[in-house]
């Protein structure tokens, strides 16, 4: 599992892996928002947590179709399926690699982009924390969606349609943590619920992903 994880991370980080793409996409989304709603801090600051969470969520979505598709094209996925590691472990490792190459950098970059949107300083830390806790769930759900659509010719758009409704609970709790952090309110309950969603996804979704992969590889 560790080897699959490090292999995937290496593939993503090296040239042609598209590692920087999701970060660049995140930056562009955040830069475009003031053009849409106006540059006043009074407008931007209240919506900043939501915008940053939405931007991170969409940036996560971008790299999802690569999770299994490339391995399927060159046959590596068939080898992984016959490897001694259970397919559930492969699914978890794949999600972990996806998180390390998108969720983690997005979470670390978000406070800097929050400055652009005029988010009050105490909110920066909680924004990063909420993203760190929430993005693993996004990667796991996304990996499940990628497993459902891996055999399809035009899976990309369908993947978004399948995955985005599943992102609703994570987005609600995550953006709420970031918003309460910025306003200095108590944020225990949403943070705990966000952690619960992520923990539930870690526990259950690898099995669903593996089940979908077995069908797709049949």
């Amino acid at each position, binding site marked *: 599992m560790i080897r699959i994880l490090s292999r995937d991370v290496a593939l993503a980080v090296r040239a042609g892996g598209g590692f920087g793409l999701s970060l660049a996409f995140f930056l562009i989304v955040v830069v475009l928002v003031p053009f849409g709603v106006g540059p006043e801090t009074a407008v931007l600051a209240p919506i900043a947590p939501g915008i940053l969470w939405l931007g991170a969520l969409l940036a996560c979505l971008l790299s999802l179709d690569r999770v299994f598709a490339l391995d399927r094209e060159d046959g590596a996925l068939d080898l992984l399926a016959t490897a001694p590691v259970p397919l559930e472990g492969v699914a978890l490792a794949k999600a972990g690699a996806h998180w390390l190459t998108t969720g983690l950098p997005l979470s670390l970059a978000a406070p800097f982009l929050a400055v652009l949107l005029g988010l009050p300083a105490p909110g920066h830390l909680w924004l990063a924390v909420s993203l760190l806790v929430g993005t693993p769930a996004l990667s796991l759900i996304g990996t*499940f969606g990628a497993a*459902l*659509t891996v*055999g*399809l010719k*035009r*899976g990309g758009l*369908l993947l978004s*349609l*399948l995955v*985005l*409704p*599943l992102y*609703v*609970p994570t987005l*609600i*709790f995550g953006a*709420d943590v970031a918003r309460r952090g910025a306003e200095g309110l108590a944020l225990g*309950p*949403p943070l705990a*619920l966000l952690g619960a*969603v992520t923990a539930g996804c870690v526990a*259950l*979704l690898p099995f*669903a992903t593996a*089940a*979908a992969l077995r*069908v*797709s590889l*049949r």
Partner: protein
Amino acid sequence: MQTEMSLWSYANPTRFMATTRPLLPWLSALAAACLVVGLVWGFFFTPDDYRQGSTVKIIYLHVPSALMAINAWFMMLVASLIWLIRRHHVSALAAKAAAPVGVTMTLVALVTGAVWGSPMWGTWWAWDPRLTSFLILFLFYLGYMALWAAIEDPDTAADLTSVLCLVGSVFAVLSRYAVNFWNQGLHQGASLSLDKEENVADVFYIPLLVCIAGFVLLFVALVLARTRTEIRARRLHALQLRERMA
């Protein structure tokens, strides 16, 4: 040879077709009768509400369709489980057949709610937990149907959509509670419940029950008809394949 009769014997497509063929016209007629009686009674022979006026009568479309929108998804969940566990093709096809009916029910509930909300709440749409949950349910239906449409091999499609239905059900329930957490509601509490005293006065209640029965029957009849069509389509496909092989 001993033949054991059980519910599972209807999983045989031939048996399913033979049983449902005489049943379907009766079911359809009963559904139509219930709907006509319930709606005419509800629309023309019940008094106006003292506060809501005549707008209260949209309840006869709104409540049954909302009820069936959720129950249709629940039926798809059960059918998906049966397919995954026992591999009965009729079950998978019934789940496929129920989705467009369910999505229509969801749409009817959303639209009638908006039509009622416009004069009563002063807005077509509010980000109320119940309304939002229904919109999310609508998106789940769309994703489920899109996945069915995208996969060519029918068994693969049945497997993948079933897995999606299971995961989607968990997330649908989760979303319902997340949305409750996120915003306080404008929508009134449940109109009907099994364990509490009713919120609906008797004059409105009885035609409402007739309408609900009509919607349930309509749903069953539509799903049966659509499942029969799916089975016929599969047979036709098999025949064409065989012809091409020969």
